[in-house]
Structures are given as structure tokens and as C-alpha cells.
């Protein structure tokens, strides 16, 4: 192993005992026509018990690939998990057989996907789809399963569960369908719920309701959550910790309050500044991050954000900074992390 710089975090760090999930040096690649692409490249983070961790970043930064890796839903020929460790309550998921993993999925670990329109079977009633999730995991009678389904529909605040249970997905609105997805994910009371941009396709008012629901469910079942999103406004107030990803790398992490109060990476600062918010930025102009996410096939040796960075210095072009511990519970992958303006 290369010489470890002071405060370097990558590798060799033990999982914190208070965490439910600990990801260490995860590398996941997608197979493309032009060879392997490392979409997740050495990612490490912990999710604290009963807390919500948010992963943010633009599309193509590896956020969803990280969530899919945790579910172990990335397989050949699409791609593969190359290396690393994913420990759920002390058990390394990457060493489990597919059969054992099936026992983990749905029970200890559940996921809500981005598009409720495509994740529900159009020809099967809502009730059957949730019931399936219930009966696969537990041996229960049909009547018990139906009762449990009703209970789940009630819990996600769907109106008239008695009618809803025999309804087909096309009759529901986008928000209702997402509630069904959440009910299904909750069927076996998972310890950790993964949410991949659960509200992108929804109205702002419906988004607020879904997050309100998630917050209440979390409070009641002391569930941990991983929220993958590009909507930073939702991170604020719903998550307790945040990991910022850029081009497959973690570039900054810390508690939401700390990161939003003071950014220690210019990318995070750029993301937060580009949020439109009435009364805070000059009328009719938004701050932006110029350019776009780099092509993973053509990465240089330097910092991956250097091309778009307003604080770039010569060092950034030739050497990629390691993820450094910069304050208590804070880490940043920037040579000039203490100079980021606030």
C-alpha cells in the first residue's frame, strides 16, 4: 500500500459500532462497449442506526450504482462489484451466496425505486403485489397476508385501503403509486430502507407529503435510511448525514447541518448555490457549475472536478487529492478545502 497521508480515510478504517451499514472501498464497474467503467470508485461511508444518510450529486456520479451495489442488484452482463466491503449489521453482504442474499433483500434491506410507474406490474392488483412481498418472506395464510396488506396500505396513508387493495396501478396517481412502493418495501419491516430518488417524478406538494410519511415511518419503526437524490432541498431537513459524490468518488461528507452551513469542497458549494430560492440570489440569475460531469473513460491523473472548479490550482491538475479528514466527522477531497468561501 502507498504511503498514507495524514488523516487519509480510504481503507483500513474499522466500521463504527453504532452504524447499521458500513461501506468500505466499494468499487463497482459497468461493462460498456468500450470496456469497464468504474462508476463507483473507492466509496466508503457509514449509516448510523435509525438515521438517514443522503447521497447527493449530479446524474452519472455513481449515486444509484452505489445503492444498487448495496442491494447486490448489479450483475453480469450489466456490470459487477469489483472489490470492497458492504457490512450490514456486521455481515459482509458481498461474501453471501445469492440464496442468502435473497433472504437479506426485503427482510433486512429494502429499496424504493425512482419510477413508480415502471416498478409496479400493470396487470396485477396492488393488493397482490404487496401480498407477494409479504408471503415470500413469511409463511402466512392468505387471509393473514391480506390483513397485513391492509395494514400496510393504511400505514402509508392511502385512502380507502379496502378499495385500494383490489385496484390496478393505472388507476392510481403518481404519489399513490409511490406510497404503494413504500408499503411493499416496508412489508417485512426492513432495518435499512434504500430510496433512489423517490420523488423526482412527483409534484412538489406530493413530494412534501411522501417525505412527511417517510419521516413518520422512520420515527415509529426506528428504521435507517439511505436517500439517493439530486434534490438538495429534500436533503435539508430529512437526512442527518450527507455524502457528496462526483464522478464515482466521495468528494465531501459530514452532518447535514455542518455541510449546509459551511462547504469544504467547491463542488458541494456549487450544488448548493445553484438551488433556486426566493429572496436569496439576485433576481433572474442563478449561480451554476459550468460544464458537465467528466467522461469516465477519459479521466486524467488530477482531481476529477478540476475542469469545472473555480478554485483550481496547478496541483489539482497533476494529483488527485485523497479524501481527507478535515474536522470532526467531516471529510473533503480538495486541496484547498479550508479556502472554500462561505
Amino acid at each position, binding site marked *: 500500500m502507498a504511503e498514507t497521508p495524514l488523516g487519509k480515510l480510504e481503507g483500513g478504517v474499522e466500521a463504527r459500532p453504532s452504524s447499521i451499514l458500513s461501506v468500505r472501498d466499494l468499487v463497482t464497474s459497468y461493462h460498456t462497449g468500450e470496456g469497464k467503467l468504474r462508476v463507483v470508485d473507492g466509496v466508503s461511508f457509514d449509516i448510523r442506526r435509525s438515521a438517514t444518510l443522503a447521497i447527493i450529486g449530479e446524474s452519472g456520479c455513481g449515486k444509484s450504482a452505489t445503492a444498487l451495489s448495496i442491494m447486490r442488484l448489479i450483475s453480469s452482463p450489466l456490470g459487477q462489484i469489483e472489490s470492497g466491503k458492504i457490512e450490514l449489521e456486521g455481515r459482509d453482504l458481498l461474501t453471501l451466496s445469492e440464496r442468502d442474499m435473497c433472504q437479506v433483500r426485503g427482510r433486512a434491506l429494502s429499496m424504493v425505486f425512482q419510477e413508480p410507474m415502471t416498478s409496479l406490474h400493470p396487470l396485477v392488483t396492488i393488493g397482490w403485489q404487496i401480498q407477494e412481498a409479504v408471503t415470500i418472506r413469511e409463511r402466512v395464510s392468505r387471509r393473514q397476508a391480506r390483513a397485513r396488506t391492509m395494514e400496510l396500505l393504511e400505514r402509508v396513508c392511502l385512502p380507502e385501503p379496502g378499495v385500494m387493495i383490489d385496484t390496478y396501478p393505472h388507476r392510481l396517481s403518481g404519489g399513490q403509486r409511490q406510497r404503494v412502493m413504500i408499503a411493499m418495501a416496508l412489508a417485512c419491516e426492513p432495518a435499512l430502507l434504500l430510496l433512489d430518488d423517490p420523488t423526482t417524478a412527483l409534484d412538489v406538494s406530493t413530494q412534501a407529503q411522501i417525505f412527511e410519511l417517510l419521516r413518520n415511518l422512520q420515527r415509529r419503526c426506528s428504521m435507517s435510511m439511505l436517500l439517493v437524490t439530486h434534490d438538495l432541498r429534500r436533503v435539508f431537513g430529512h437526512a442527518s448525514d450527507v455524502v457528496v459524490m462526483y464522478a464515482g468518488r466521495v468528494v465531501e461528507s459530514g452532518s447535514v447541518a455542518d455541510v449546509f452551513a459551511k462547504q469544504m469542497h467547491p463542488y458541494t458549494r456549487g450544488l448548493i448555490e445553484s438551488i433556486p430560492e426566493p429572496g436569496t440570489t439576485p433576481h*433572474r440569475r442563478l449561480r451554476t457549475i459550468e460544464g*458537465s460531469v467528466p467522461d469516465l473513460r477519459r479521466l486524467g491523473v488530477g482531481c476529477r472536478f478540476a475542469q469545472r472548479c473555480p478554485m483550481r490550482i496547478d496541483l489539482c491538475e497533476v494529483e488527485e487529492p485523497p479524501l481527507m479528514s478535515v474536522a470532526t466527522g467531516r471529510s473533503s477531497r480538495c486541496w484547498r478545502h479550508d479556502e472554500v468561501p462561505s
Partner: protein
Amino acid sequence: MSDVLSPTEPSPVDASQHERAHTLIATESVSKYFPVHPSVLGTASRFIRAVDGVSLRVRYGETVAVVGESACGKSTLGRLLLRLIDPTLGRIVFEGTDITQTPERALLPVRRRMQVVFQDPTSSLNPRMPVGEIIGEAIRIHRLARSRIEERDRVARWLKSVGLRPEAAALYPHEMSGGQRQRVAIARALAVEPRFIVCDEPTASQDVSTQAQIINLLVELQETTGVAYLWISHDLSLVHHVSDRVAVMLLGRIVEQASADDLYDSPRHPYTKALLASVPQIVSGLPPPTFPITGAPPSPVVPPSGCAFHPRCPRAVRGVCDRDVPILEETPRGSGHRVACWISDEG
């Protein structure tokens, strides 16, 4: 000087003439009803009032935002203005001409003056055409270039004005990122030099950083070309940055209309207040909102009686709000702030 002698307040007649001269496009109580067919062969017994008596005015060079939840009729209104669909009732006046009844053949010169940018550039751009052809086709249909060379020059110029390199003309849409594709859609709309563009959620499918780039681009292009926008969105905090005036729609009707600053500083309709409260404010450091709206948006097929917001309204008064539909009226403060609510004056 004659200025000194002229009255400071224009007479009502002058004001309306002045208003008319500056109006680019206006709807007069325009409505669109869609039939609901109970079965495949059945005749329509009910109608969805997607747009119900909306009067809206867009002046030259300004941006009017239409905001509301899904199925409130905002996109239908945009399509009506463009004459992509025909209104059931009411009139649409574009540059002083009533275009409500204009036959399809005669619409071509009008279409050159009004364009649209849709939400999803992946489905609004032809996947089998290179970008140069996508933009060039618009120029050709409206005969804006005298030769192929001039057409190519124009395409290159528009690509440059939306921040793309001229070489992008050879690329196909799938070879570009979502943000770049939306830039192509904007270039195509601008290539025919319109006065009016309907932007139907142009950034809803984009990342926050790309969203900011696209918004800034549209604002810059407005400053250079003087084009007017009708900006359709469900996100009230976003439209504040781009719009001069905002209309909030609920179930086919405008429930509040004001200048952008007025609407954010002093929203009057409980629905507007709820929409504003549904987005967390980061920079101000306010705690996350507890959304006051609990129910689902009302069904357009079976609309609630009276005010469409009353089933979800925290301040609804029984016997008032559920009886009659409130009329959109000027608030006592004036300045064009109008609201349709029975109880908005009580604080």
C-alpha cells in the same frame, strides 16, 4: 414640454389602448373540456374541465409563469395558446389577431412567431436526425434561409448561442447529455426567431446544476432576442427567478395572479401559501416545513363543489367555500394582484 401639461394618470381608455399595444398574446375566458367516455362505445356523459375560463395576458418580452400541481391544466393552457389543441370556449388573440378559428393552413406564419420547449428533450427530438438537421428543418419549413449554406450558417449560429459548439450539428441526440439535448430543443425553438415561447417545465428532468444553466441560458436569450415566455412549472420557488408575473392554477382555474415579487412576499390564497411551504428553504435556515395540505389533489372528473381547494384548505368555512366558486378579483392593495378566495382578506 408637453410632458408637464399631460395628466399624470392616463385615462381608462388610454390605459386599455396602451395595454393592447403591449400585449403579445392574450386569452379571453378560454376553456377546454375533454369528454370522459364511460366505455369504448359510449358517448361522453361527462367532461373534464381541464381549462375553465382562463384570461391571461403575456406582454412583449416578459415572462409569465403558470404554476400548479399535475392535472391542474397548466400544460393544456400552454397548448391552447399555441393552438396545438382547439379551445371549447373563449378566444385567443395573438399580436392583435384572433387566431381561435384560424384554419390549420393559415397558421404557418403564426407558428413561426410562437414556439415551444418541452420538458423531456429525449422525446421531443427526433432520434434519427442529427442535431443540424433538427434545427435546419425548422429554418427550411419557414423558408428563412435562401441556400443550404445560409441554413448551415444559421444552425451554427444558433448552436453557438445556446452554448454548443458548431460541430455538435453532426451529433445525434443520443450522443449528448440531457442538458445538451435541452439546449438543442431551445436552439430549434429560437431558430425561427419567434416572439413567444411556451416553456413547459423545461428543467424538470435536469440536475440542479444543469437546471441552473438552462434557466440562465433562457434568461440571457430573452435579454438578447426580446422573446416572451410562458413558463409552466410545478415549482414555485424556481419560477421566482425567471418570471415577471405568476399565475397559480388549480383545477383549470387561476386562483391567484400577481407580480412575482408580490406573490412571494405576500401570497393571499391558502393554496399558494401551501405550495410555497412545501419546499424546504436551505439558505434561510428555516426548519423543514410541515406541509399543511394533507389530502390528495382534487379529481378533475368529479371536482369538489365551490372552491376546488376547500377539501384541503385549513381555513375553509363551511357553507361558504364549499358552495360557490370564488371569483378572481383584484385585492384591495391593487397593483394587479388578483385572488380567487372567499376568505383571503381575513389575514
